[in-house]
């Protein structure tokens, strides 16, 4: 350890070795002062300052994670919206009275759907669901995704 005007010279937090000291002695005075100052900067901060820096970093990380989560949620919402928009713009095939018909996927009023697929307004339209036919009210809505099977028929038959 070398003391020079009350200053202890350190390198990387450790006292200088004899070799360091010899090398230092060979340097011009200004350079030696620069090395000393550099060493003090590397390890001279207080524990309090370091703790505050860590706390600030933790706050920044927390904020960054929160922003990332928000961004991920927004991305998922955007993907869902895109999927719905694509579904609305997609042309699909359905079967009506045994004939394939191409229509845009989406939600229709049953009466409007009948016009679209060429079913007369006075006929009842049934949809095949779970192995049986369900009659559709003309004022109800129906969502077309593709591959639906419909049968239309006259509204006749009655108890005699």
């Amino acid at each position: 350890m070398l003391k020079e005007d009350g200053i202890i010279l350190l390198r990387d937090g450790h006292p200088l070795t004899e070799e360091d000291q010899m090398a230092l002695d060979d340097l011009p005075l200004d350079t030696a002062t620069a090395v000393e100052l550099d060493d003090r900067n590397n390890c001279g901060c207080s524990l309090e300052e370091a703790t505050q820096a860590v706390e600030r970093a933790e706050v920044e990380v927390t904020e960054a994670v929160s922003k990332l989560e928000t961004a991920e949620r927004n991305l998922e919402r955007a993907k869902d919206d895109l999927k719905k928009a694509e579904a609305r713009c997609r042309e699909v095939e359905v079967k009506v009275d045994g004939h394939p018909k191409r229509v845009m996927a989406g939600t229709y009023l049953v009466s409007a759907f009948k016009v679209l697929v060429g079913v007369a307004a006075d006929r009842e339209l049934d949809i095949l669901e779970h192995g049986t036919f369900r009659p559709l009210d003309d004022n109800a809505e129906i969502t077309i995704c593709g591959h639906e099977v419909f049968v239309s028929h006259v509204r006749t038959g009655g108890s005699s």
Partner: protein
Amino acid sequence: MRPAELSELRELCPGADQVTEGGQNFVDLPAFRIPVGQEIVIRDALLSLGAHTGYTSRLYLSEQIAGRGANWTVHTVLGRSWHTPSWNNVMPGRPIEMLLQHLRAYR
């Protein structure tokens, strides 16, 4: 009955098949699923594609459906007893259309 018409019926009842008796055409519909209100009732069914026993068409069932249909009667067709309500004026057409007209009796 054309193959396409039978295929349509098989989407509804996989065991559907055409049968004849005395020159009359029928469709045999084993374990046919009948919508009754919010429920499904399963019956063997036999659909006559032409006039039968005084009606324009008949849908015969292996058993009555309680609370649905009126004036049920029993008939023997193809060697089996069948039950059918009074439900007339079903218009001739594609078999599946005729079947759906009959099913309106049980809603």
